[in-house]
């Protein structure tokens, strides 16, 4: 699976021009170099006969934490898990269809409470044990139910799980307490990698040791220097790649050397000076210098809930829908994207990304209109005070939010938002603090009336993941993470549950459209941009692929002669 390179490179060139112009840099030679770079990069990709061999040096920004597969939501974890584990199914990133992988076929009953998977024969874990129905059952029992004694939490992607049954060595059946239409997609996500049953018998606290993770993937953990580097070695006898990924045999690379390099400038410098082949996490302002030297930016969409700020209506100021609507109208997402980001960060047009399942274009609900914002605030009784900040009954229209460190340039985003809101008389304080204070304050709607958030997952369930009280609970509803919460929106929760339980795909997408409109009509959330994961690679690194939520896969990667 490759990128549609021609159009992508063109787009990148446009963006880089824009961003160059924005930075008031002299164009001239930079521009020429850039165009040459793009051209040579796109022609280089045209010739495609993979070569076996070589080790890819991959620089990661952060060390991995726990490698229990459901902890794969954390990017550094998934960068490893995606190479060493396989999943029952493969979500084709181009079509978002679910295709066979470890499972050759599957059946579901009409109300989506029973799933039967027929496994591919002959698959083994890297320790030689067979990947059979019992192993798969053990995995999903742990993912779906957790394991209190050993400390395993339940996986986010798996809802309503009841149990498993091994029908024959290659057939396994899963049953659910209630309809679980998202389960088939959940078997394809990064959190559902299948590991050897022996892995799941170890204490959860010890799974930070990568050498203990035995999977069936195309690579095997060879050795690890904790917190610094990890060597992956190809599995010679691997023969069960997803049918539509390009090839099914062993990976082309002999190995991958993953090195944790926290410093942005060191990762980029190492790539450009030929010391590394592929790096994760490039800020938008660094993209131009990478492309100027003919290196490639790989931006992968996360296909989930967009980068946004979410209100906590429990807070008396934002409890008023007019205030939330006014702040939505006062937000100029286009300016944020063009000032701080690049074309790899499309402006949001709905709660979820335009590449997400069930997306509908709701950009008319997100129009930037400061006059409308002022009118709404006037109507809601907020009067401009002497210092330019609106007041009502002696209370200032002053809100606070903590920056979210994992999100790209979140501090700058919030600061620009703060300027935009100031133009209509609302004050936004951008807080930074130690993670302990941030997490505690983020549970208190009085201290943090809004919070930046995003979730990546290519299934309509993602909206429930972000907003439902017992999931990520962005709105801080009653019954969720804030023990003192009294506010809830039963209509919203009903809609969210309906999506998670609707077995009919068409009806499910309709409900997804409804919930997007509902969230924006209630102005609970201000989507800003579609958050990508941005990687950069040397021009001779070919065949890089991403799963549906931007996790890199090195299975197809090969190194062309330099």
């Amino acid at each position: 699976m490759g990128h549609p390179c021609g159009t992508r490179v063109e787009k990148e060139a446009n963006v880089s021009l824009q961003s160059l112009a924005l930075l008031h840099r002299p164009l001239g030679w930079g521009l020429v170099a850039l165009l040459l770079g793009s051209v040579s990069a796109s022609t280089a990709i045209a010739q495609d006969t993979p070569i076996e061999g070589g080790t890819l040096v991959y620089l990661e920004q952060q060390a991995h934490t726990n490698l229990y597969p459901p902890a794969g939501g954390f990017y550094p974890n998934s960068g490893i898990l995606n190479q060493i584990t396989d999943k029952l199914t493969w979500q084709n990133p181009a079509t978002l269809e679910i295709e066979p992988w470890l499972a050759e076929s599957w059946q579901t009953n009409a109300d989506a409470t029973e799933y039967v998977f027929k496994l591919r024969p002959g698959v083994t874990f890297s320790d030689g044990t067979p990947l059979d129905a019992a192993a798969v059952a053990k995995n999903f029992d742990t993912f779906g139910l957790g394991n209190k004694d050993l400390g395993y939490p339940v996986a986010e992607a798996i809802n309503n799980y009841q149990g498993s049954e091994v029908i024959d060595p290659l057939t396994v059946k899963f049953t659910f307490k209630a309809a679980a239409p998202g389960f088939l997609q959940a078997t394809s996500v990064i959190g559902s990698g299948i590991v050897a049953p022996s892995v799941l018998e170890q204490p959860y606290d010890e799974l930070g040791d990568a050498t203990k993770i035995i999977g069936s993937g195309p690579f095997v953990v060879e050795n690890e220097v904790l917190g610094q580097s990890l060597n992956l070695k190809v599995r010679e006898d691997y023969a069960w790649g997803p049918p539509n990924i390009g090839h099914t045999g062993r990976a082309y690379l002999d190995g991958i050397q993953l090195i944790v390099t926290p410093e942005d400038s060191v990762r980029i410098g190492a790539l450009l000076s030929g010391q590394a082949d592929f790096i994760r996490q490039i800020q938008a302002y660094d993209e131009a210098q990478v492309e100027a030297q003919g290196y490639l930016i790989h931006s992968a969409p996360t296909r989930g809930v967009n980068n946004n700020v979410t209100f906590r209506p429990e807070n008396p100021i934002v409890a008023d829908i007019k205030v939330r609507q006014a702040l939505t109208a006062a937000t100029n997402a286009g300016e944020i994207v063009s000032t701080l980001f690049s074309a790899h960060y499309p402006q949001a047009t709905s709660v979820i990304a335009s590449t997400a399942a069930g997306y509908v274009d709701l950009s008319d609900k997100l129009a930037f209109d400061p006059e409308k914002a002022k009118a709404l605030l006037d109507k809601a009784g907020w009067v401009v005070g002497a210092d330019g900040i609106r007041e009502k009954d002696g209370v200032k229209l002053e809100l606070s939010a903590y920056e979210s460190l994992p999100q790209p340039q979140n501090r700058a985003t919030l600061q620009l938002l703060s300027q935009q809101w100031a133009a209509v008389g609302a004050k936004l304080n951008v807080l930074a603090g130690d993670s302990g204070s941030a997490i505690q304050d983020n549970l208190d709607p009085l201290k943090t009336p809004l919070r930046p958030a995003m979730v990546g997952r290519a299934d309509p369930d993602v909206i429930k993941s972000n907003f439902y009280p017992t999931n990520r609970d962005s709105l801080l509803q009653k019954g969720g993470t804030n023990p003192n919460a009294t506010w809830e929106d039963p209509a919203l929760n009903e809609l969210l549950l309906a999506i998670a339980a609707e077995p009919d795909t068409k009806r499910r997408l309709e409900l997804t459209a409804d919930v997007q409109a509902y969230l924006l009509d209630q102005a609970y959330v201000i989507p800003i941009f579609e958050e990508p994961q941005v990687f950069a690679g040397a021009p001779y690194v070919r065949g890089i692929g991403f799963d549906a939520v931007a996790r890199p896969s090195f299975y197809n990667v090969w190194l062309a002669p330099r």
Partner: protein
Amino acid sequence: MTTTIATRFGQAVLVLLLAFTASFLLLQALPGDAILIKYQNPEMGLSPEQIAGIRLRYGADAPIWAQYGNTLVNFLQGSFGYSVQAGVPVNTVLAANAWPTLRLASLGVVVAVLLAGLVAFAATLAPFNWLRNALQMVPSLMISVPVFWLGIMLIQLFSFRLRLVPIINPSEFQALILPVATLAVPIAAPLAQILIRSLDEIETQPFVAVARAKGASRRFVLWHHVLRNALLPVLTIAGVLFGELLAGAVVTETVFGINGLGRVTEQAVSNQDTAVLQAIVVLAALGFVLINLFVDLLAPLIDPRLNRPVGATA
């Protein structure tokens, strides 16, 4: 001598216990904790009940005195608990990181001492007055350079531009060059400054004039008479510099992306990984105690006057 050492040992244990207790109390006083930070993270996707279960399992909500007692007993048995963030026992974290830091730090000290001596002697012996003055300002410059900036500049220049030392996949020797240089500069600065000052001071003492009057060259006097007398304040400050070394390691290891206690500390602080921090505080306290003991035992060898009982000099 035995009583002195026994007293010192008792003091050391007391210092360690106090460091342990103080760090325990401070970490408890911080808002939030490691479990909150790791598991409340939306990327983990856990429900409130699951988080409550995890807290119960870690004993995170037990009364503070019970947690204190448990941790202390475990420490005494050599068990430092689990790193919540890294998902491995703290012992594993320390084992993987202690040696690289120790090597980096000791090489850093050696290079710093050489560098300080070089600067100090150059500043004292240089031919022209203006040159001596200029050289005397070098330590102030060295201490004003931020470590992270120096590190990044060294990498940019020597690794990316001149391509002399790779930063990714270097050989064991190459891997040490730039980090050791980065770490040595801020350590060398105060050493050089104090050495210059005390060389100047000692040079004005009558015995130096006597030695010079006997016909010894300035260089000979400096080397044979002045240096030994000037070393004592430097040795004392070296004990204090251990702290600087730890702080330098935090930045150096992060910038260079190398393993070590400094980087572990940085991550443990930002994640409030209490078990790791607790172990590092005690380890650092132990380092301080050992270095100061070493300095106290070494001082009388350099200056025998220190060995005499206090009353005898009166």
